[in-house]
C-alpha cells in the first residue's frame, strides 16, 4: 500500500494548481536521474522506446524502463513517475478533463525529446520498394493528394478534427480538436523549432539523426539482422523521387493502380487527419485514386501489412522502418509527414521535490 498514501493526498487537491513552482528549479537531468533510480520511467516499448533509451544513455543511466500500457493509469497512480506521452494524445489526456482525461491541467510538466537532442522522426508514408517501382505514378498521385490533405488540415485543424470525427473516429470530439492542433504543430515545426512549409519533406539531418539513434538502440537477437541494421544508409530506407514527382506535378496522373489502401499506425484519429481530409475533400478522387484507409493499432504491424501486400501504403515511424528493413523487408519511405518528435516524458513536479 505504499502508493496509496500519496495518491490519496492528491485526491484532495485535484483541480487546485496551487503549489507547483517548487519543482521548477529542478533540471530535466535531475528528474530523469531520480526517476531512473526509482525504476519508474515508463514507455510502451514495441519500437517506441529508442528516444527514451537514448535519453537515459545521455545521462549515463541504465536502460531499464517499465512497460506502460496505452493508458496513463500508471502515471495517475504514481507507479510510473516519468511517463511517455505523445504531445497530441496522452499529454492531452493527462491535462484535460474531458471524458477519458485525467484532468491534471497545468500541474504536470514534461521533458521534450526535441529539446534533449534525442528526437527521432515519426509518422511517414511508406510502401514496398517493389510496389513503388511498379506503380511510380500511383505513388506520386497518392503523395500529391495526401500532402494536399495535410496542407488543408494544418491550416484548418478544427475542420479537420470534425472530418476525422465523422469518419468513425474512436475519439471524443473535444480530444479530437486538441489532437488536431497539436498534430498540426508537429507537421509544421522541425526538431529545432523552425517552421516548415515544405510538408512531407525528408530532412537529411533529422533523418540521419533518427537512423543513428536507431542503429545504436535497436537491439536485435538475430545477428544477420543486426549486421544489416548497422550497414543501413538513408538510401536504403527512403526514396525522395516520388515526392519530387508529386511536387512538380500539375495534379494529373496516369495511375497504374487506382484502388489503393493505406494502413495507419494507430487508431483512426486526428493523428492521421491529412488522409481523412484528402478523402473527404475528394483529393484522392481528383488524382484518379480510390483510397481505403485501414485503421491501425492492431497486432499486425503496419510494416508487415504493407510487406505482405494486404495494404499498399502505410504510416510508420522511421525507426520501425529501419528495423523492418534490417529484418529483411524491402520498404521505402516516400514522404515524411511529422517533422519533429511528438514524444515527451511527463511528470508530476511534486513527485520530485
Amino acid at each position, binding site marked *: 500500500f505504499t502508493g496509496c498514501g500519496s495518491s490519496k493526498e492528491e485526491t484532495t487537491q485535484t483541480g487546485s494548481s496551487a503549489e507547483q513552482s517548487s519543482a521548477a528549479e529542478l533540471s530535466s537531468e535531475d528528474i530523469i536521474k531520480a526517476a531512473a533510480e526509482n525504476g519508474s520511467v515508463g514507455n510502451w516499448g514495441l519500437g517506441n522506446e529508442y528516444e527514451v533509451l537514448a535519453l537515459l544513455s545521455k545521462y549515463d543511466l541504465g536502460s531499464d524502463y517499465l512497460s506502460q500500457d496505452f493508458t496513463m493509469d500508471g502515471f495517475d497512480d504514481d507507479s510510473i513517475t516519468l511517463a511517455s506521452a505523445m504531445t497530441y494524445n496522452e499529454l492531452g489526456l493527462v491535462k484535460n478533463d474531458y471524458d*477519458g482525461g485525467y484532468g491534471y491541467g497545468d500541474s504536470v510538466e514534461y521533458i521534450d525529446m526535441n529539446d534533449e537532442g534525442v528526437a527521432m522522426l515519426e509518422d511517414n508514408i511508406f510502401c514496398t520498394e517493389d510496389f513503388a517501382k511498379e506503380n511510380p505514378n500511383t505513388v506520386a498521385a497518392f503523395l500529391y493528394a495526401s500532402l494536399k490533405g495535410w496542407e488543408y488540415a494544418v491550416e484548418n485543424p478544427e475542420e479537420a478534427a470534425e472530418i476525422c470525427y465523422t469518419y468513425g473516429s474512436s475519439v471524443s470530439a473535444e480530444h479530437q480538436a486538441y489532437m488536431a492542433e497539436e498534430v498540426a504543430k508537429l507537421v509544421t515545426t522541425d526538431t529545432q523549432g523552425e517552421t516548415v512549409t515544405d510538408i512531407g519533406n525528408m530532412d537529411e539531418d533529422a533523418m540521419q539523426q533518427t537512423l543513428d539513434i536507431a542503429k545504436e538502440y535497436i537491439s536485435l537477437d538475430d545477428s544477420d539482422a543486426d549486421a544489416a541494421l548497422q550497414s543501413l544508409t538513408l538510401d536504403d530506407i527512403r526514396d525522395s523521387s516520388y515526392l519530387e514527382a508529386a511536387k512538380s506535378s500539375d495534379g494529373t496522373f496516369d495511375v497504374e493502380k487506382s484502388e489503393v489502401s493505406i494502413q495507419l499506425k494507430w487508431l483512426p484519429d486526428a493523428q492521421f487527419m491529412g488522409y481523412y481530409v484528402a478523402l473527404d475533400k475528394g483529393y484522392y478522387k481528383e488524382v484518379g485514386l480510390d483510397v481505403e484507409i485501414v485503421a491501425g493499432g492492431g*497486432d499486425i504491424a503496419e510494416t508487415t501489412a504493407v510487406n505482405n501486400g494486404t495494404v499498399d501504403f502505410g504510416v510508420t515511424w522511421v525507426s520501425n522502418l529501419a528495423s523492418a528493413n534490417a529484418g529483411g523487408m524491402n520498404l521505402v519511405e516516400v514522404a515524411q509527414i511529422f517533422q519533429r518528435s511528438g514524444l515527451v516524458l511527463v511528470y508530476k513536479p511534486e513527485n520530485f521535490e
Partner: protein
Amino acid sequence: MRKFKGLLEKKWFSTIFWIILLAAGWEIAAVYVGYVKRTPENILPHLYQIVAAAISKDPVSADMTATGLVLSAAAATILRAVVGYVIGMIVGFILAVLMKMSGIIEKMFFPYLMLILLIPVLGMAPIVLAVTGDIDKSRIIIAAILSFYPVATNTLAGLKSVPKEQLDLMFIYAAKPIEVYKKVLLPTAVPYIFSGLKIAAPMAITASILVDTLQGDGGLGCILSQSLKHAMSIYVFWLIVFFSAFIGIGSTYLLGGIEQFMLPENRNKRKIKRKVMKDERRSLQEKEELICQSKI
C-alpha cells in the same frame, strides 16, 4: 409439472444467488477503490455507473451510444466466433474420431494439436493471412483453431470412456464401426462432448475478440482496445467485460439446454411421451367413434 417448475426456479436461484454475491463483493471493492484511487472508474467503477453508461444516450464515438457501439461491434465478433466455433467443433470432433480409430494417429498427432494451440495468434496470423489472403477469413480460422482442441480432447476422452463390456457386445454382433459409433460410442460420449463444447465456447469468443485486434477495423476487440487506450470512454471497456461474461453464462446455459435435449436417454423419453400421447388420442378417437356408431 409443479415439481419441474420448482426445480427450474431453484436452478435460476443459485445462479442469481451467485451473481448477487459477486455484485455485492464488487460494490464493496468499488467503494474502497473510490476512496483510495484518483480515477476509480479506470480500476473498478460502481455497477450503477456501468449501468448508467449502458443506458446513456450520449454518443461515445461518432454518433453511436456506448451500448449501440458495443452491440454493433459484438455482431461482427460473435458471428465470427460462432462460425469459428462450429468449424472448430466439427474439426475437433472428426479428429477425435480419427484418434479413437487409430492409436498411431493419436500418438502421432495429439502432441502437435496441442502445439498448434501454443503458437500465439501473433505468430499464426501472418501465416494464416498469407494462406487465405483475407483478414476476415484469417480471423475465423484462428478462432476455429483456438476452439477445436477442447472439443477434440473431451470427445476423445468420452469415446474412450465406454465400458469394455458394451464394446464386447457390439464386437460379438460384428457391428460395423459406424454402427458402434452410432449406437454406443457417441451416446456415451455426449456428456463429454458437451463439456468440451462448454469449455470451447468462451474460448471461441475470447479468440474472436483477440483476433479482432489484428487490424483496427471493427469488432469488440477493437473497441475494447480503443477504450482501453482511452480513445473513448472507459465505460465502453467495462460494458464489454460484462457483455462477454454474459455471453459466457448464456452459452453455458444454452449448451446445457441443448445437452439435455440431445442426451440419448431424454430423446428416448420424448419418443415414449409422444407415443403415449398418440395412443391416448387414438383410443379417444376410437371411443368417440364407438359412441357415434352406437348412437347411430
